[in-house]
């Protein structure tokens, strides 16, 4: 049924988990499309990461911080009232919103800052959309005493004020980026410009599973703890694999973290939820797989929202974290081979799900996982009660209450 055979190149035939190949590619996606100034650094980073991976003390260090600082494992919560309300499949939440700093982003930041320290880097930069990755980066920088500069689109600075203030409290310097539409894409451009100018001492902590190789693979590896925990936690709770895993997708780091450990479990349906903004045909959305085509941006070949001349289009989503015109290259590959299904959810549907989750489960979700939940709301009632869905609740919604209030007509 699944079209696994196509585009596998050097990836091992008996596993979907062995990518990328030696050139950093997942099928035809990924790669290293950066200026020559950065290329030696990218290669150095790859070598350093491979060495760290082979060193058991590196993983032990990550495990220590994930357990005692981040608070892992995060709970796997049976959402009983929501399940009853929707009247179909059994719904579990993987509660990565309970992590320190309130989202899955910290999993990756711990891994990358420990690598930066191993490499002797003394300054950290990062881009951020919703501010969750920025907060997580500023947090680990405070923890390890490293100076930190966060690039954030000027529009996002405006709509994510609580996170901006949190980053400042943590000691980070925030640079509002005014170029382009002033969102995540532009923040990433400026972070890369900073990196080019400060190659000697600076480590760039990319927040999503995109960018030049080795970032997509490295960020995925650091996020796989989500799926690995889910696997044993559900085994404990139900004695089996889930039938369906669902996660929201901007760049796709929380989704690849949940999906990757299940890629070779053919019985598990994997569903990624893109942001449809005002609707897929409105021209204002962030659905790069549904409405984009392959191209090169930010160091990797992947599906992008672009015009006929190859100029990158501005994405739109109510969720700043999904407001990105590209997607991680591994998702593009998983899309093309048909292993993961990609669907989309509008701003309005996400807002409805946000409220439902809050009232039935007493959990205020971020607008990002509210997209995943909105798809759960569509899917669960169509399935028998013995099916199990796991949804990644990858962030908490405190940062979004101002946005939500505005849309619901409240003034805070």
């Amino acid at each position, binding site marked *: 049924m699944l079209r696994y055979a196509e585009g596998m190149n050097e990836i091992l035939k008996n596993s979907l988990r062995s990518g990328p190949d030696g050139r950093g590619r997942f099928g035809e996606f990924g790669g290293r499309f950066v*200026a020559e100034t950065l290329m030696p650094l990218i290669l150095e980073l790859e070598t350093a990461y491979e060495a760290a991976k082979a060193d058991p003390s590196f993983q032990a260090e990550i495990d220590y911080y994930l357990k005692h600082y981040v608070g892992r494992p995060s709970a796997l919560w049976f959402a009983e009232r929501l399940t009853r309300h929707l009247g179909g499949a059994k719904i579990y939440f993987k509660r990565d919103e309970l992590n320190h700093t309130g989202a899955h982003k910290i999993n990756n930041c711990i891994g990358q800052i420990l690598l930066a320290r191993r490499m002797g880097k003394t300054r950290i930069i990062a881009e951020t959309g919703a501010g969750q990755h920025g907060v997580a980066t500023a947090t680990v920088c405070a923890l390890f005493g490293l100076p930190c500069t966060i690039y954030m689109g000027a529009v996002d600075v405006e709509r994510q004020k609580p996170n901006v203030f949190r980053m400042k409290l943590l000691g980070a310097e925030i640079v509002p980026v005014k170029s382009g539409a002033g969102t995540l894409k532009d923040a990433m451009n400026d972070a*890369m410009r900073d990196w080019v100018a400060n190659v000697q001492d600076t480590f760039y902590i990319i927040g999503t599973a995109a960018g030049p190789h080795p970032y997509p693979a490295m960020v995925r590896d650091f996020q796989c703890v989500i799926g690995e925990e889910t696997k044993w936690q559900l085994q404990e709770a139900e004695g089996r694999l889930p039938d369906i895993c669902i996660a929201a997708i901007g760049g796709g780091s929380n989704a690849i973290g949940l999906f990757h450990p299940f890629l070779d479990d053919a019985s598990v349906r994997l569903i990624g939820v893109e942001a449809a903004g005002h609707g897929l045909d409105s021209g204002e959305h962030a659905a790069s797989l549904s409405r984009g085509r392959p191209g*090169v941006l930010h160091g990797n070949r992947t599906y992008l929202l*672009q015009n006929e001349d190859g100029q990158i289009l501005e994405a739109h989503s109510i969720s700043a974290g999904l407001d990105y015109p590209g997607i991680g290259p591994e998702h593009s590959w998983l899309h093309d081979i048909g292993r993961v299904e990609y669907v989309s959810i509008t701003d309005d549907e996400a807002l409805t799900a946000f409220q439902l989750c809050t009232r039935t489960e007493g959990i205020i979700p971020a607008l990002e996982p509210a997209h995943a939940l909105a798809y759960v709301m569509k899917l669960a009632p169509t399935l028998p009660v013995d099916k199990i869905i796991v949804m990644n609740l990858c962030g908490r919604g405190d940062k979004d209450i101002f946005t939500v209030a505005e849309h619901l007509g409240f003034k805070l």
Partner: protein
Amino acid sequence: MSRIAGVFENLRSQGRAALIPFVEAFDPDRDTSLALLTGMAANGADIIEIGVPFTDPMADGPIIQAAGRRALNAGASLRGVLGIVREFRHGNDKTPLVLMGYLNPILSYGVAAFAHDAAQAGVDGLIVVDLPTEEADLLLPEAAAHGLDFIRLIAPTTSDERLPKVLAGSSGFVYYVSITGITGTRTASAEDLARDIPRIRRATDLPIAVGFGVRTPEQAATVAKYADAAIVASVLIEKLTNTNIATVLADVAALASGIHHATKAAA
């Protein structure tokens, strides 16, 4: 011999370096770009570099970023840039033109179709900023098949061991990005160039052009002392934004004069 190789051979016999000014196509409109190309060729430009606007120019500083935005607002496209080249060629068959830009518009155009159309239009060379040697097989064979010079960027971070790998398959000239940073920000010193250029010279017989941060006739003369060409971009864009075409062309003439009077450092 390609137009570019011909220019450098001719200059070598004169014992001087080349001036390569930069025009961001369609900034602020198509007619201005055409007037600049024609005018620069008449005012001492030996080769002209044409910037192909892109929404996300990651290696460029604020000045070229803004130029790219104005150009896109004026309706710039890769096809449109080739149209400008074609029109320029009606009156000038001699000055080499090099396109500098990012990969995605080329991918979107179709690599084979682009290489064909660019060569037909009269483009001589390509510089693709986000196409490092590791990914060059995407474009290099098609460029070579159509006689387009494939110009590589070398950075201060490019090690001696890496140089031959980066230079493999390149032709025309070598573009030395003389600083670690984005366009139009810092300037390399004479000491930097005295150290860096011989290092590259040992790895290639191709002429070496120096770009990023060359702003004044004096700086161009310094570059000409050590290298074979000076590339000047941001300062000319800035001038165009604040004044007019005539002033930009006067600056090009002054830069050319700076280079003509430069004395070569002993090799």
